[in-house]
């Protein structure tokens, strides 16, 4: 059963690569139109050191931005979920903020904090990704049936105890659902900054310089590396979800 979970996805990737290779060969596309997988490997090998270095930069910035988004988003969600007034006050603001395309925020932030590349990148990753977390936590908390609260409150439990023992765990499945969205968003945020302001380096910069040098295989190689990083981050969230909210998965009958 378990080997199937590993072998099947790998087989799918291999099939995709072969199809891609065949497609490029069959149409006889030049490299500047579409690189083929066999061109990617040399690109990876040649820029191996840069891939590791920049990949790491992109990864830690994304994770840092996401971490800030989790802390801030959870806090905001708590405030909005536990206080009706705060919810009414903050919700429209939040929606409005979320509606601003983040690509327009990047130059603004870059101007405000000139040269602070790590900070800027983390900031954008955070700004782009906290919204789903805040919304899911606030909805999870505000839709808590009053009976759950009453059971503990009637025993003299504090608000904090009710939150800790009931509201928080009950919100975890929604939280992880949102985190899966947030992790992808944060990743987009990081790359956005790295591409728009390339001095900060990261995989986005590698992409940018590949483009400048018309190194098409390298551009494709960066895309593949980004995909791999994205998958890696996503499945870490899935693993955490299994550990902390696995109970929400109803066993199949």
């Amino acid at each position: 059963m378990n080997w199937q979970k590993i072998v099947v996805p790998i087989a799918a990737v291999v099939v995709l690569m072969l199809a891609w290779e065949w497609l490029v060969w069959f149409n006889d596309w030049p490299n500047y139109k579409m690189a083929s997988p066999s061109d990617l490997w040399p690109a990876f090998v040649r820029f191996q050191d840069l891939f590791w270095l920049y990949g790491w930069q992109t990864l830690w910035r994304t994770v840092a931005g996401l971490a800030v988004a989790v802390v801030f988003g959870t806090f905001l969600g708590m405030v909005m979920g536990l206080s009706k007034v705060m919810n009414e006050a903050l919700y429209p603001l939040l929606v409005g903020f979320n509606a601003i395309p983040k690509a327009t925020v990047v130059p603004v932030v870059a101007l405000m904090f000139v040269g602070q590349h790590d900070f800027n990148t983390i900031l954008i990753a955070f700004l782009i990704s906290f919204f789903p977390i805040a919304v899911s936590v606030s909805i999870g908390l505000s839709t808590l049936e009053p009976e759950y609260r009453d059971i503990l409150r009637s025993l003299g439990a504090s608000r904090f105890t009710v939150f800790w023992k009931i509201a928080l765990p009950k919100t975890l499945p929604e939280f992880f659902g949102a985190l899966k969205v947030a992790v992808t968003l944060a990743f987009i945020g990081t790359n956005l900054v790295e591409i728009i302001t390339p001095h900060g380096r990261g995989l986005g910069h590698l992409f940018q310089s590949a483009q400048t040098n018309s190194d098409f295989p390298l551009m494709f190689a960066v895309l593949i590396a980004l995909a791999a990083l994205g998958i890696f981050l996503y499945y870490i969230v899935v693993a955490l979800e299994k550990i902390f909210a696995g109970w929400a998965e109803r066993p199949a009958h």
Partner: protein
Amino acid sequence: MNLIEIKGVTHAYKTKAGPFPVLKNLNISIPEGSFCAVVGPSGCGKSTLTRLIAGLMFPDQGEVWLHGERVTSARKTVGMAFQNPVLLEWRTILQNVMLPLEIVAPMMPRRQKEERARELLAMVGLEGFEGQRPSQLSGGMRQRASLCRALVHKPDVIILDEPFGALDAFTREDLWQTMHEMRAKEPFTALLITHDLRESVYLGDQVVVLSGRPATTQYVMEIPGGGPRPLEILYEPESVERLAILRHQIQIAQGREAA
């Protein structure tokens, strides 16, 4: 001595449209160890009454007394069960039943908490289901677990707000009997809100009929006997007569609501 004493309780919810009167000069006395069933038109204020007794809310006027003390804050000495069993899906049945002990007696050794919870689960026929998740149990079994949770910390009083309301007729009758068995093994004082007159007559030592909103004590019926009784008792002439009286009282109560 009466364990619960509700004296002239009047309460209104504060809404945007102004005060919304729900209870008006309500009086109920429940002796220690006795089972009080409360019936009344829907929306008349029954759940509000339970929240006042549990100390989750306080009346505008009048007093609620529990065990010789005026209720001015939430008490550790009540247990509650609702129509929705509100079990926590991330806990096993055993852990769910232990929950009140974690609040009321945090210092109690875990083994002792577990023993107590197991004892109650066995009493309601849930032996062997301790490790299951709530979603793996039937509605009736979940409600049994919820009753165990209400009783686990040996509260002075358990407050039951239509706990059998969502169950099918047969399961409900099973649970009525379980209720009697539990009382025989471990006496407790109870206030049961119900929509079912048969339930009130079968389980109650006293049935209180509330009027339509704002609810006041409209009628009180004492039911002699006490203790476990066979279900057949409901078909005996005395019970039939009681049911007829109560039905008549409910109709009056509903009339008042319409007016």
